[in-house]
């Protein structure tokens, strides 16, 4: 499953913050509590020392009872046990609030007027529950604020930071190597993205130039082949005039002759393909496909007659499309010949033309063609067949050039090629 990068980084941040804060909250409580107790103890000891230094020398024994009466938190009582200073927790019942309050208490032995007493000082402590609650609340607030803040900041920041990246991405998505439009990548002040853009530009440039040289190679090769082929053809044409041959020799010459014309066709179709790719047919005009179909109908009917095919034409609507007229003719001829070539004897062909699409259906082999690579060059479904394996590639190229879609389907023992004129 793919998710946005933002989601992934935020998720990690969020998990980390939650873990950190939940772990640090008890720690914080523990440390706070300890500091608090230490501070309390220090205060108690300080109070005792102050008492011993300033109060005890001036406090007569008779006044002790009075002292105890007015001092809630420091009591001086006759000694109970002669132990050393002790600090401990204790609780006293608060009669006003009607609950037990925690206290820290210091018991120390002191001498007043030569008599031993127990000095007992206490400080009211914050209730543990209260402390815990406050800390929990504090941390919860921090977590929430952190998360919201983090989310907003990353979102805002990522939109800003990733903007050049997204622009580059859009450009690359639109890029097609066989179209002449080159992507324009805007430079940014972010080093990584600049690097990315530069590498992509380099990559595209290199690939485009390789693609162009390859395309040129095909066209040049096909062109260069024309002259030797012409010579080959001419020599055979002259040779077959030269004398009487035996039947065996005639058969050989015939097969030689067929091979040359096949070679010629193959070469011309390759040339046509590279011409389409090189935008030699870029001018387009509005053409009526009904006329295009009818133009060479006689020729195709003648071809179909050799196989005793039944042709059904359904040209219900006058269909005008924008295309190069030569290419439209080639498209229809190829579709037509394809339907004838792969047909069975006494088979049928159905041609349906509407404003939306052009459909050629034909009977033929009883299983569907393998769609994978169907429209690629030289991908023949049946290697022994007569076709040169370029017909469908040419059809596809022309459809692509006009932004039409070509699709293949098989049902009711009919192979159908449909060209949809709807722009993608």
């Amino acid at each position, binding site marked *: 499953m793919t998710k946005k990068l933002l989601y992934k980084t935020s998720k990690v941040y969020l998990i980390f913050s939650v873990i950190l804060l939940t772990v640090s909250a008890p720690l914080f409580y523990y440390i706070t509590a300890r500091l608090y107790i230490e501070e309390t103890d220090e205060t108690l000891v300080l109070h005792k020392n102050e008492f011993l230094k300033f109060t005890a020398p001036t406090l007569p024994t008779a006044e002790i009872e009075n002292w105890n009466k007015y001092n809630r938190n420091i009591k001086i009582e006759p000694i109970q046990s002669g132990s050393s200073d002790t600090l401990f927790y204790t609780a006293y019942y608060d009669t006003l609030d009607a609950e037990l309050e925690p206290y820290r208490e210091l018991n120390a032995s002191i001498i007043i007027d030569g008599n031993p007493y127990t000095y007992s000082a206490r400080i009211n402590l914050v209730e543990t529950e209260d402390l815990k609650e406050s800390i929990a609340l504090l941390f919860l607030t921090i977590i929430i604020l952190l998360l919201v803040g983090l989310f907003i900041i990353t979102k805002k920041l990522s939109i800003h930071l990733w903007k050049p990246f997204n622009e580059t991405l859009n450009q690359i998505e639109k890029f097609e190597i066989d179209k002449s439009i080159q992507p324009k990548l805007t430079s940014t002040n972010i080093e990584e993205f600049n690097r990315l853009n530069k590498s992509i530009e380099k990559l595209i440039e290199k690939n485009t130039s390789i693609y162009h040289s390859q395309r040129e190679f095909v066209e040049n090769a096909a062109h260069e082949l024309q002259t030797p082929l012409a010579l080959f053809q001419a020599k055979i*044409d002259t040779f077959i005039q030269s004398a009487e041959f035996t039947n065996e020799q005639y058969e050989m010459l015939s097969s030689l002759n067929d091979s040359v014309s096949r070679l010629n066709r193959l070469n011309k179709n390759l040339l046509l393909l590279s011409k389409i790719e090189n935008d030699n047919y870029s001018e387009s005009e509005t053409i009526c496909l009904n006329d295009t179909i009818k133009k060479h109908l006689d020729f195709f009917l003648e071809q179909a007659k050799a196989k005793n095919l039944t042709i059904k034409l359904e040209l219900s609507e006058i269909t005008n499309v924008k295309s190069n007229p030569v290419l439209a003719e080639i498209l229809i001829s190829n579709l037509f010949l394809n339907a004838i*070539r792969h047909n069975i004897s006494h088979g049928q062909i159905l041609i349906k033309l509407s404003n939306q699409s052009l459909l050629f259906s034909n009977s033929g082999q009883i299983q569907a063609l393998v769609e994978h690579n169907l429209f690629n060059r030289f991908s023949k479904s049946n290697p022994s067949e007569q076709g040169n394996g370029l017909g469908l590639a040419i059809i596809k190229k022309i459809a692509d050039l006009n932004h039409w879609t070509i699709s293949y389907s098989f049902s009711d023992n009919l192979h159908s090629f449909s060209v949809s004129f709807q722009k993608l």
Partner: protein
Amino acid sequence: MKLLIIEDEKELAHSIQSYLKSHHFVCEMAIDGKMALNKISTYDYDCILLDLMLPDGNGFEILKELKKQKKTEGVIIISAKETLETKIEGFNLGADDYITKPFHLSELMVRIQALIRRKNFKGNNLITYHEIEIDSLSKTVKVNGNAIDITKKEIDLLLYLIGNENKVLSKSAIAEHLSGDMADMLDNHDFVYAHIKNLKNKLKDASCSEYIKTVYGLGYKWKND
């Protein structure tokens, strides 16, 4: 008839020459533009075959020169380049026909004949061969003076066969001639048989001699025994 072949591929020029020779064509050859221009300014030809790609320049220059010298030779461009632009430019500069390499010599033959007919016999479109009389303009055929019912395609085939008299014509050559622009896509030559059969029958019905001979395995031949 005098012909000038301007073609740098000598072997191809020789083949054309030897094919045309038997049909009373006298062919001269020029292997580059300079030689071609020399010959053009010195002699008159009935027809010029011009390759556009010459070692010392563009074939269009020769067309321009012909125009400048007000020469009226018919010119057929022979080119490996088949773009609409070069065709249009060729025609604009005064070329009469355009044939793309590779081509069948039989096709070139009928193109030359048609061109010469157009140039030399203005208004006269009659082609006669013994008892057969073809009017290439009104598309009618008479055998022994009687018009026969014949399709345009069959007339085309007849002209092609007669034009290449005594030559073995392969089925693929006939198929390509009959299908014209569509030839590049054609991979089935079965329809040639049907056309030949129909034409044979029509000529036979009009009590014409049997000129169309089958050449075993290869094709057909128009021959007067």
